[in-house]
């Protein structure tokens, strides 16, 4: 490998780790703020560093600090297997994190004749890796629930395990029908397939080509991440807190963060398999590279408008009511943030201006295309994370028997049917 290739690989690994780990505080904050706004409240919005509240995201970091400094408490009855008790949340956390590493953030780039994957783990069997590693997370839940020597924990772990078994089937079969459609198990090739068009005008996104499989897989991924409406493993209204009843401090935080990384990973998988991955609709990577000048000009026009709209929104909403005497430095924050945003916009505009005059086959263009695709990917990721959050605060939790009924009696037959129909169509088209 040449030095630039090594640098690109390292950058991709760092990017993947940041995208997974830095997303945790943002997601926790989003969860609380979105929940608040849905319920006509505000959510955490006071914590600040030197008057910078950033909409309250500082609260997440304060929470992490609190959890780090909390007492490490072990229930007295855990005499044997304490090391396993400590490792259990780490298994959940690590498996969710590792599963994220196969998601492509952008199309392959060619650096000095070497084709590099923009994936932290450059493997071409991504979906198998996700299915294999993603479900190891349940081992952490089972171990944690079992070692707690607590009936609530054990019930929670049992629920989680049986729920996972019943939905992993539907998930796997849904994925099989997608593999049949795409003819590949490589995430990046799936995204390539989705760059085309169907019926002449629709982007060939998996959700439009295979709507039934999309619904099945999305539902199954909700179960896989243990989120509402399928969070029966926690079930705090029935079994205290389920499998992590006996966990405290950072050990609890590991489970907590693992859940959010799992949600992030599930969003990434849904995007990659069903919503065109890092690709803009209708625009394939080749088109993007050939016509980057035109796209750069579109961005030069769109970006200031978007930033201006955001600053207008911030000026209106980063305030207190007129009846309140002190604004707690919010006007100051708005002023500074607006200036920073404007400065960033100006810099990006200049870079785009330079890039728009570069030839289509230059290194700069392919680099810019990669960055643009990463930005599109992150934007889609955020949209789906917010979808996960909104669903959680919309739907009540399923009863345990309803979860099993839905999995075995509806999703499993449907996914089997979907495989048959897909196989017939694929064979029919091929022959």
């Amino acid at each position, binding site marked *: 490998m040449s030095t630039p290739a090594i640098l690109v690989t390292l950058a991709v690994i760092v990017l993947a780790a940041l995208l997974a780990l830095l997303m945790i505080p943002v997601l926790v904050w989003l969860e609380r703020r979105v929940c608040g706004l*849905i319920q*006509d409240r*505000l959510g955490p919005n006071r914590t600040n560093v030197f008057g910078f509240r950033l909409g309250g995201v500082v609260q997440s970091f304060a929470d992490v600090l609190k959890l780090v400094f909390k007492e490490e408490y072990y229930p007295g009855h855990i005499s044997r297997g304490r090391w396993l008790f400590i490792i259990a949340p780490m298994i959940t956390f690590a498996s969710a994190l590792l599963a994220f590493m196969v998601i492509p953030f952008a199309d392959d780039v060619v650096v000095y004749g070497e084709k590099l994957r923009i994936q932290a783990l450059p493997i071409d069997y991504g979906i198998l890796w996700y299915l294999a590693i993603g479900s190891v997370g349940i081992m952490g839940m089972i171990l944690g629930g079992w070692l707690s020597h607590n009936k609530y924990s054990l019930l929670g772990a049992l629920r989680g395990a049986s729920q996972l078994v019943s939905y992993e089937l539907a998930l796997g079969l849904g994925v099989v029908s997608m593999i049949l459609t795409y003819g590949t198990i490589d995430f990046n090739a799936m995204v390539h397939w989705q760059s085309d068009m169907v019926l002449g005008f629709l982007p060939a996104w998996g959700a439009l080509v295979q709507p039934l499989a999309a619904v099945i897989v999305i539902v199954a991924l909700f179960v896989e991440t243990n989120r509402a409406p399928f969070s029966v493993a926690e079930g705090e209204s029935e079994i205290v807190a389920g499998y992590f009843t006996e966990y405290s401090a950072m050990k609890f935080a590991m489970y907590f963060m693992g859940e959010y990384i799992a949600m992030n990973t599930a969003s990434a998988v849904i995007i990659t398999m069903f919503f065109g991955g890092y690709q803009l609709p209708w625009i394939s990577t080749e088109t993007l590279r050939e016509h980057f000048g035109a796209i750069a000009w579109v961005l030069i026009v769109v970006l200031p408008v978007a930033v201006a709209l955001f600053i207008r929104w911030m000026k209106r909403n980063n*305030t207190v*009511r007129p009846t309140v005497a002190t604004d*707690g430095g919010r006007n100051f924050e708005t002023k500074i943030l607006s200036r920073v945003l404007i400065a960033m916009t100006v810099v990006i505009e200049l870079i785009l201006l330079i890039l728009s005059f570069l030839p289509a086959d230059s290194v700069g263009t392919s680099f810019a295309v990669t960055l643009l695709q990463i930005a599109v990917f992150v934007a889609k990721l955020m949209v789906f994370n917010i979808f996960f959050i909104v669903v959680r*605060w*919309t*739907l009540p939790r399923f009863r345990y028997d309803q979860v099993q009924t839905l999995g075995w009696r509806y999703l499993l037959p449907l996914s089997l049917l979907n495989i048959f129909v897909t196989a017939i169509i694929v064979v029919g088209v091929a022959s």
Partner: protein
Amino acid sequence: MNRPKIKTVPRYNKETKERLYLPAIFAGLKITAKHLFTNLSDINAVETLEYPEEQPTDITPRYRGLHRLTKREDGSVRCVACFMCATNCPAQCIHIVATERNDGIDEKMPAVFTIDTLECVFCGYCVEACPCDAIRMDTGIFSVTGKRREDFLLDRDRLLSHHNAFGEDTSDA
């Protein structure tokens, strides 16, 4: 034939649209998304009180706030130290020491009248029990804060210094 009386409860939502469950999910998502975006577009329209900068405005005269000892027309304490409130108190948070009253207005008065607000459950039974209308909970004070335990012990002078928060003070009439 003696069949047991079985009452069949009718099951609703048997239509296909209901059993598909997805239309209902999207209807719910529509409602929550509407709330989300309405509140996001105008965050100050959210009816949350920005406490402590904004104080509640809905405290009514019947609200049981912090206690106060009422006064007579001449400004002296109305309490006659009959111990009715202390006897009636379910939390046993009222501590009274009676003393003789020599100014001819009455025979007894409290030398010490302390309410431990850490013990108090704000039930208002002391107000109900008082035969002289000497203790009231109409100060409208809902927030009791302090840095030491002693800050929560309300002594006689502190209780006398509280005022009726709702209009005219009718206690000394």
